[in-house]
C-alpha cells in the first residue's frame, strides 16, 4: 500500500480530551512522525462527544476511510503511527470506528455511524464538532458555513428568517423552551434606535457541557446564528456572555470572531450589504444566577448579577434599557442549519410540540458518557442503555437526574418516558439545558437533594427573601436528616417550605430550587423515612449513619486497610484478621476502597 500517501493525524483537543492527556499525545505524535520522516499533517479538532474514550486520535490516509482510535496512550500512539500512518495498516485492536465517507473502507473496523453509541443519534447542532478544525474559518466555510447568513441577507427582509424559524418550531434550548421565532418577532417589532442580541453561554448547570463543546468545536456556527438573529431583530451589536470557567471556549471564539471580521462576515457592512454587526465577548465571573436573563444583563452592565421582576421583558427593555434578545448557544447553533435546510426538514425531527434534536450531556454512573444529540421523543431507556451502554460494574440503575439544580430525578418506572419538553415535565422533571446524570444504587437520594440545595443556597443572589432564607432552611433540614438528626414532621416541613419558595421567589432560580427536594421526596420517600426513623442510610453514603466493620472470615490480613487508615483506627497482625476501633473511625471509607477482598463492610 502507498507509503507516500498524504496522511492526516487529528487529535481531539476539547476540554475532555485535554483532561485525558491529549496535549501530550499531540506533541508525541508530532515527534514520532518527524523521527520516522513521515509527511503528515497533524491537526486538532474538538470534542466529537465520545468523552468516555478520550484521548481520541483519527488517522486519515488519502483515499481511505477516516479511522478513529480511542483511549489512546503514549504507547498506542507509537503503534498507530508506525503501522497506520506509515504503512496504511490500521491497528485494529485500538480502532473504535471508521468513516467510509472519506474513502476506501478497511476490513474489520465498525462503521462510525453504526456504533451503538452513534446509531440512535441525529447530529444537527453537533454536526461539525469533532470534524472541523474550530480555528479554521475555511474549514467551516467548506462545510457549508456562512451560506445561511448570505441567504438571509439576500432576501433583504429581516422578517424572512423569523418566519422560517417560527415555522421550524425551534424552542429555546437553555431550559425554558420558549419559541425562538416568537422571541425574535417581539424584538423585531420593538421600536428603538439600538437593539442587542446576546448569546447566553453562561452554562451554569453543574453537569451540562454542551454549550462549552459547541463553542469550542464550532464557534463560527454561533457567530452565524447571532448574525441571522441580529439581522432579523435589527440589532447591530452582539454579546457572547460566557463562563470564565471555559477558557478554551473563549479563546476559540476570539479567534473565530477575528477571522469573521477579516472575511467581512462581521463589521460595518456585513458582506457589503450595509448591515453592520459586531460581537463582543463578556466573560462571566462565576455566578449561576447570571444564566437568568435579567441577571445576565445586569452583569454585562457591570453590576451585581441580580435579576429583576418581569415585565418589562428584555425584548422590550433589555441591555442598557434597549430591546434585547437572549438566545442560548445550542439554540443559535441550530439557526444556520434550519435556514439552509428549511423549516420542514428541522420539524421532521422530534414530537408534535418538541421539534428538532436536543443535545444532552450524559454523565454519572454510565458506561459510555459524553455528549449526545438525539431526535426529541426517543426514550430515556434508549439513551441510558442503547446509547450509554447501561450502568458500570453490574450496579442497579436508580435514577436519572435531568435539568440540574432546577430539575428532578426520574426513576426506573419512568425509563420509557419519551424525552421531550412535555413528557419530561409530566414525569416530574425538566429537560432544562440538557444535563443528564445517571445515579446507581450507591447514590443516596437525600444526599443528592442536599447536594443541589447546597449549590442553590450558595448561588442565591440574596435579593428576595424566600430564595435567600428559604433555600438555606431547606438545606439545613436536609443536613440534619443526613446527619441522623432528622425529626418527625421534617418531611412535611420540607414540602410546605418548598411550596412557599416556589410560589414567592422572584426568579427562576428560587422558583425551581425546591425541585430536587420535591422530586426525590415524591419518588424516594422511603429513603428519607429510613434516615429519619431508622437512622439508616440505605445507600450507605451519609457518614454519621454508617459503620465500617471487617469481615473476619474473608480478611487475609494483608494490612492494606491499616495502611490506608489516616487515623490509625485499624489494628491487627499480619496475615490475621484486622479490626476497626469504632471510637477512632472517622468513616472516611479509605479502608473500604483499599480492600481487594471485599472484606470491609459498609452499612
Amino acid at each position, binding site marked *: 500500500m502507498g507509503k507516500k500517501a498524504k496522511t492526516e493525524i487529528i487529535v481531539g483537543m476539547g476540554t475532555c480530551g485535554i483532561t*485525558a492527556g491529549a496535549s501530550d499525545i499531540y506533541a508525541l505524535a508530532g515527534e514520532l512522525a518527524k523521527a520516522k520522516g513521515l509527511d503528515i499533517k497533524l491537526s486538532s479538532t474538538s470534542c466529537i462527544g465520545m*468523552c468516555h474514550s478520550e484521548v481520541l486520535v483519527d488517522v486519515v490516509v488519502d483515499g481511505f476511510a477516516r479511522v478513529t482510535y480511542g483511549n489512546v496512550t503514549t504507547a498506542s500512539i507509537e503503534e498507530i503511527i508506525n503501522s497506520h500512518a506509515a504503512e496504511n495498516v490500521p491497528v485494529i485492536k485500538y480502532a473504535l470506528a471508521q468513516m467510509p465517507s472519506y474513502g476506501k473502507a478497511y476490513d474489520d473496523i465498525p462503521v462510525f455511524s453504526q456504533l451503538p453509541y452513534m446509531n440512535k443519534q441525529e447530529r444537527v447542532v453537533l454536526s461539525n464538532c469533532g470534524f472541523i478544525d474550530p480555528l479554521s474559518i475555511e474549514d467551516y466555510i467548506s462545510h457549508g458555513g456562512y451560506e445561511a447568513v448570505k441567504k438571509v441577507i439576500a432576501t433583504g427582509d429581516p422578517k424572512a428568517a423569523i418566519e422560517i424559524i417560527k415555522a421550524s418550531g425551534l424552542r429555546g434550548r437553555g431550559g425554558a423552551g420558549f419559541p425562538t421565532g416568537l422571541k425574535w418577532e417581539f424584538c423585531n417589532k420593538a421600536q428603538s434606535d439600538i437593539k442587542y442580541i446576546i448569546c447566553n453561554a453562561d452554562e451554569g448547570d453543574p453537569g451540562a457541557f454542551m454549550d462549552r463543546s459547541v463553542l469550542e468545536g464550532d464557534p463560527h456556527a454561533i457567530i452565524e446564528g447571532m448574525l441571522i438573529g441580529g439581522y432579523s431583530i435589527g440589532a447591530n451589536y452582539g454579546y457572547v456572555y460566557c463562563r*470564565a*470557567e471555559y477558557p478554551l471556549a473563549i479563546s476559540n471564539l476570539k479567534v473565530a470572531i477575528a477571522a469573521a471580521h477579516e472575511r467581512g462576515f462581521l463589521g460595518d457592512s456585513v458582506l457589503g450589504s450595509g448591515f453592520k454587526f459586531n460581537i463582543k465577548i463578556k466573560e462571566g*465571573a462565576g455566578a449561576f444566577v447570571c444564566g437568568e436573563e435579567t441577571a445576565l444583563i445586569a452583569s454585562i452592565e457591570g453590576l451585581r448579577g441580580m435579576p429583576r421582576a418581569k415585565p418589562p421583558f428584555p425584548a422590550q427593555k433589555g441591555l442598557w434599557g434597549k430591546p434585547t434578545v437572549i438566545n442560548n448557544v445550542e439554540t443559535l447553533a441550530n439557526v444556520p442549519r434550519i435556514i439552509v435546510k428549511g423549516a420542514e426538514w428541522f420539524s421532521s425531527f422530534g414530537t408534535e410540540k418538541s421539534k428538532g434534536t436536543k443535545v444532552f*450531556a450524559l454523565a454519572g454512573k454510565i458506561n459510555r*458518557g459524553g455528549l449526545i444529540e438525539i431526535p426529541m421523543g426517543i426514550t430515556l431507556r434508549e439513551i441510558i442503555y442503547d446509547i450509554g451502554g447501561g450502568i458500570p460494574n453490574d450496579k442497579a440503575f436508580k435514577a436519572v437526574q435531568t435539568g440540574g439544580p432546577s430539575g428532578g430525578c426520574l426513576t426506573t418506572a419512568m425509563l420509557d418516558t419519551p424525552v421531550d419538553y412535555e413528557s419530561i415535565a409530566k414525569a416530574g422533571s425538566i429537560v432544562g439545558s440538557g444535563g443528564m446524570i445517571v445515579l446507581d444504587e450507591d447514590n443516596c437520594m437525600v444526599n443528592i437533594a442536599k447536594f443541589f440545595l447546597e449549590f442553590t443556597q450558595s448561588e442565591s443572589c440574596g435579593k428576595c427573601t424566600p430564595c435567600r432564607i428559604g433555600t438555606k432552611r431547606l438545606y439545613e433540614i436536609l443536613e440534619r436528616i443526613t446527619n441522623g438528626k432528622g425529626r418527625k414532621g421534617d418531611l412535611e416541613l420540607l414540602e410546605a417550605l418548598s411550596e412557599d419558595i416556589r410560589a414567592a421567589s422572584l426568579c427562576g432560580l428560587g422558583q425551581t430550587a425546591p425541585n430536587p427536594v420535591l422530586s426525590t421526596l415524591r419518588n424516594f420517600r422511603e429513603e428519607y423515612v429510613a434516615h429519619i426513623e431508622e437512622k439508616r442510610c440505605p445507600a450507605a453514603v451519609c457518614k454519621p449513619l454508617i459503620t465500617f466493620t471487617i469481615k473476619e472470615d474473608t480478611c487475609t490480613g494483608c494490612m492494606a486497610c491499616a495502611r490506608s487508615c*489516616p487515623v490509625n483506627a485499624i489494628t491487627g497482625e499480619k496475615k490475621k484478621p484486622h479490626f476497626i476501633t469504632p471510637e477512632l473511625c472517622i468513616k472516611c471509607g*479509605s479502608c473500604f476502597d483499599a480492600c481487594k477482598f471485599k472484606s470491609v463492610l459498609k452499612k
Partner: protein
Amino acid sequence: MFQEGVPMEGLNDILAKYYQSEGSIVSILQDMEVRYGYIPEEAVSWVSGQTGLPASRFYGVATFYGQFHLVKPGKNVVKICRGTACHVKGSEKISDDVQTMLHCGVGETTPDGNFTVEHVACVGACARAPIFIVGKDVYGKMTPQKAKKQLEKYMDGEGNGKKG
C-alpha cells in the same frame, strides 16, 4: 501609595482600556485578578480615586461573583470540581482527603503559601468525572489516591504544604 508587593504597573493600562466603556467594573476587576491573582485593596482604592466611583461599588461586585479573590492565593491553586457528575462519582471524598493531606480547608491557603484549596462548580468535563485541577493542569477520572499522588508533584522541599 502602594504597599510592598502590590506593584502598580499595568493598572493604568487596565483603567485606560475600560475608561470609556460602560459596564466596566466587572472587566476592570477581572483584569486585576489576572494581573495580581486577587483583588488587592490598594489597587481598588487607586482605581476608585481615579474614577471617582466609591470603592464600595467595586467591592459590591467583587464579593458577588465567585471568580474574585480578596486574599492572595497560594502558588498552586487546587480546585476540586463539585459539579453533579463529579459529586455522584465521589468528589466529596477527594476534597476531604486533599484537605486532610494539606491541612488546609476550602478557601484557605497553606501557611507556606504553596497551596490554596478551592471548590469549582463545574468545569464541563463531566464525562471524565471526577475532575481535579492544579494550576492549569486538569486531571480526569480521579480517585482520592490518584489526586494525592498528583499533588505530591507540586510539593517542593521547602514548602511541602504540611507545615502548620
